[in-house]
């Protein structure tokens, strides 16, 4: 149903608002006088309260209301936004999130634990200066909480239901503002409607409300249907004349009906003020409060929320289209039909643009994820008794939404690690001549078709001797002196930790291996850089998207393989004369550099004799380089990645597959796994590489 869709929209928006609120609070913490931030926090709380009221989410409304009380006083400058209050507000923000998940997402009553958590917060809010009396805060400027008598008349627009609104929810909200005295349902339009459309709304209502609030508050309640409904609000105490005048200009039958419903005589005794305009009647004039809501609506107009699976289906289809287009082009070329070939080329170019556009829709800036960490850094550094600031750069770097989602956890882990182990306690830092405040730098940038995310700290760096000792103790490294790369790679081994004490943050040795596994499963890589004494940098490299790959198409033993283009360094011919010598030697001289060779045919145990001419593709990953010997080079190829399925999960060296224009399936080579396999074989056994390759 429509209302359900609207609730989903509310949940998504509320989550965003809570996130914005958190960001603003964190900024407020460092700059307590920032009125802008305070206004943003207030706006978020206010909007959540208002929207939650529309859906009858009472627990959210009541808590947001108490919160609003304090915020309102802060905003008015009556109270300073000191550290303590911001901390309280942050806790309230968390509680609102929890309430949202429970009440709106799971649609159940708050749990006992939630209520138990809420009570102390409410007490602290009250103690901190929020007004304790319920529903008094909405009129802080008005002379106290004096109740006024209102007449509210609304005729909903025909599209109300289609926009996901329910007239009943407005009633529910108004009931929360005060005491309803009388209600008349206006349904005459229903009888006149012809033809009757069950999806249109023909309803309206008039009601009397005893409430201590301003006209703007009442008008605000209808912010969601503003512009499409006819709304009139009168304060019967101070503007009885306005009401009378409004009544006067209604059709007599209508006015009569209304008065009867309200239990008043018709015509009204003092019905003689015709010249007067309905002063409070037009809601748009009284919208100082409603302005934020309208700004939101403007912002929303530029965006379309699309379900992720729909987008996924579109991208898949576009990918299929590329494959089919390539097939048509091959056919046209085979027939030698020139105009036809040209036509297919034009079509394919458009299809490629289509796919690019579809993929771009899934790209989101990484900054949102980064900003979420400010809170983590704040909380964790306080818990650790360290002073740490997080500096973020490159937040507008875009990458696939699916990647962003899966990057959050590993980054969080690295961040905690850096704070716990990387950055020293303030006194240690001062003793080392560094500023007491530690600095974490989270950066993102694009680099050759990849996205690089770097987390650096200015801590003590990695203690190589301790890592070496621990690694030897656990039998991860032999007696031979390891290279720096090998040594640092040990950190990613399962269960490895050099921490002397286990804290609840890290040190259990669970984590870095999980981080690495997560990143690798995203076709990315992670490496550690740590110049002695200069802190540690973790560099994560990821593809821009998981759906597509730019590859070099090669052939070996009549099978096609795709090598990710980002890992291809160069290509060259393997001279037929040198073939057997190179085969025995296992490496080739690349401009004075020793380049180990992998014969793909042998490595994969493929059948059939090698052709006379072979080619070497120089591949590089993780700083390792090797020459991959294949039969033929078929050229560059952009392709949609198809997973190979669970049956092939154990296959090393192949990461997926792709359907070529001819309909043939090509396998995508997993270059890092291939190279890793190579180095493992060389370092664990002392067989020269050439014998190894022959043994395979």
């Amino acid at each position, binding site marked *: 149903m429509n209302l359900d869709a609207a609730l989903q929209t509310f949940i998504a928006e509320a989550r965003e608002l809570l996130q914005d609120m958190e960001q603003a609070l964190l900024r407020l913490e460092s700059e307590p006088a920032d009125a802008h931030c305070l206004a943003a926090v207030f706006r978020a709380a206010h909007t959540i309260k208002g929207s939650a009221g529309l859906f009858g989410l009472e627990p959210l409304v009541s808590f947001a209301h108490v919160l609003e009380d304090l915020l309102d006083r802060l905003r008015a400058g009556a109270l300073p936004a000191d550290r303590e209050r911001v901390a309280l507000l942050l806790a309230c923000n968390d509680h609102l999130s929890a309430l949202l998940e429970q009440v709106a997402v799971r649609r159940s009553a708050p749990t006992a634990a939630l209520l138990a958590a809420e009570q102390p917060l409410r007490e602290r809010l009250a103690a901190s200066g929020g007004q304790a009396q319920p529903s008094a805060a909405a009129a802080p400027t008005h002379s106290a909480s004096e109740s006024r008598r209102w007449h509210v008349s609304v005729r909903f627009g025909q599209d109300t239901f289609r926009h996901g609104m329910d007239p009943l929810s407005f009633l529910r909200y108004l009931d929360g503002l005060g005491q309803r005295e009388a209600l008349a349902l206006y349904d005459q339009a229903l009888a006149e409607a012809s033809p009757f459309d069950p999806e249109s709304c023909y309803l309206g209502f008039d009601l009397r409300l005893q409430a201590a609030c301003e006209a703007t508050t009442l008008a605000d309640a209808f912010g969601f249907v503003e512009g499409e409904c006819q709304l009139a609000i009168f304060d019967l105490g101070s503007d009885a004349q306005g009401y009378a005048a409004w009544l006067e200009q209604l059709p007599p039958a209508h006015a009569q009906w209304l008065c009867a419903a309200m239990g008043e005589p018709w015509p009204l005794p003092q019905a003689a003020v015709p010249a007067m305009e309905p002063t409070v009647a037009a809601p748009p004039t009284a919208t100082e409060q409603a302005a934020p809501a309208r700004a939101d609506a403007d912002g929303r107009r530029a965006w379309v929320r699309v379900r992720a699976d729909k987008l996924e289906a579109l991208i898949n289809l576009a990918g299929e289209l590329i494959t089919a287009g390539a097939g048509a082009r091959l056919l046209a070329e085979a027939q030698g039909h020139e105009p036809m070939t040209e036509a297919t080329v034009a079509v394919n170019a458009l299809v490629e643009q289509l796919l690019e556009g579809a993929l771009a829709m899934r790209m989101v800036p990484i900054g949102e994820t980064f900003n979420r960490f400010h809170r983590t850094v704040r909380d964790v550094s306080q818990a650790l008794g360290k002073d740490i600031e997080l500096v973020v750069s490159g937040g507008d770097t875009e990458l696939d939404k699916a990647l962003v989602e899966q990057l959050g956890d590993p980054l969080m882990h690295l961040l905690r690690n850096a704070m716990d182990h990387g950055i020293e306690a303030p006194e240690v830092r001062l003793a080392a001549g560094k500023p007491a405040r530690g600095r974490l730098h989270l950066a993102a940038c694009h680099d050759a078709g990849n996205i690089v995310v770097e987390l650096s700290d200015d801590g003590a760096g990695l203690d190589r001797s301790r890592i070496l000792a621990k690694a030897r103790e656990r039998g991860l490294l032999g007696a031979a002196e390891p290279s720096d790369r090998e040594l640092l790679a040990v950190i990613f081994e399962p269960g490895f930790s050099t921490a002397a004490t286990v804290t609840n943050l890290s040190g259990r040795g669970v984590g870095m291996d999980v981080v690495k596994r997560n990143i690798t499963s995203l076709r990315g890589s992670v490496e550690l850089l740590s110049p002695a004494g200069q802190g540690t940098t973790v560099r994560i490299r990821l593809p821009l998207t998981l759906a597509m790959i730019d590859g070099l198409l090669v052939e070996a033993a009549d099978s096609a393989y795709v090598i990710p283009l980002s890992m291809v360094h160069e290509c060259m011919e393997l001279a037929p004369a040198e073939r057997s010598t190179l085969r025995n030697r296992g490496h080739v001289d690349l401009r004075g550099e020793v380049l180990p060779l992998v014969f793909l045919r042998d490595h994969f145990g493929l059948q059939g004799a090698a052709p006379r001419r072979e080619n070497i593709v120089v591949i590089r990953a993780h700083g390792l380089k090797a020459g991959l010997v294949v039969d033929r080079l078929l050229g560059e190829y952009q392709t949609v990645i198809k997973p190979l399925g669970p049956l092939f*999960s154990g296959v090393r060296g192949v990461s997926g597959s792709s359907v070529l224009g001819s309909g043939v399936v090509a396998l995508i080579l997993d270059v890092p796994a291939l190279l890793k396999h190579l180095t493992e074989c060389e370092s664990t056994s002392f067989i020269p590489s050439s014998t190894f390759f022959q043994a395979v």
Partner: protein
Amino acid sequence: MSTQSLATADGEAQYLTFSVAGETYALAIEGIKEIIELGHMTVVPMMPAYVRGVINLRGAVVPVIDLAARFGQPTSTAGRRSCIVILEVRGAEGDTLVFGLLVDAVCAVLDIAAHAMEPAPGFGSRIRVDFIAGMARLDGRFVIVLDVDRVLSLQDLAQMATLAGEAA
């Protein structure tokens, strides 16, 4: 799947019969999506012999199992009547997996009455006993009815694949 149909059907159930390495086998018809001719197949390296490779089935990449090799016999050679039986199997997590079975020839779709079905013999059959759902009496001879869930047990297949990968 096939065992279920045996248990519930007091009347007749439909089976597809086909030949692999000179022997006739039967497979319950449900789950079988289509039968396609043998086209280009891409070999996936470092897989056991019974995983012949993958094919492109209208954009989906489908693994093809060589039944002869799966039964421990030499891999079948592609003949004029070779074809691939496409079928859907329920995975352990309730997901649908699509497989292709490489067979030498497809024979017929037959109705086999429940009373014509004998339980699998304890020993003496050419293939693993747990692959057999039952023996169907057809024209005075016995035809092995396969238990597709066991033949295509993903756990079994993937485990073997991992072993094969490590050995390479």
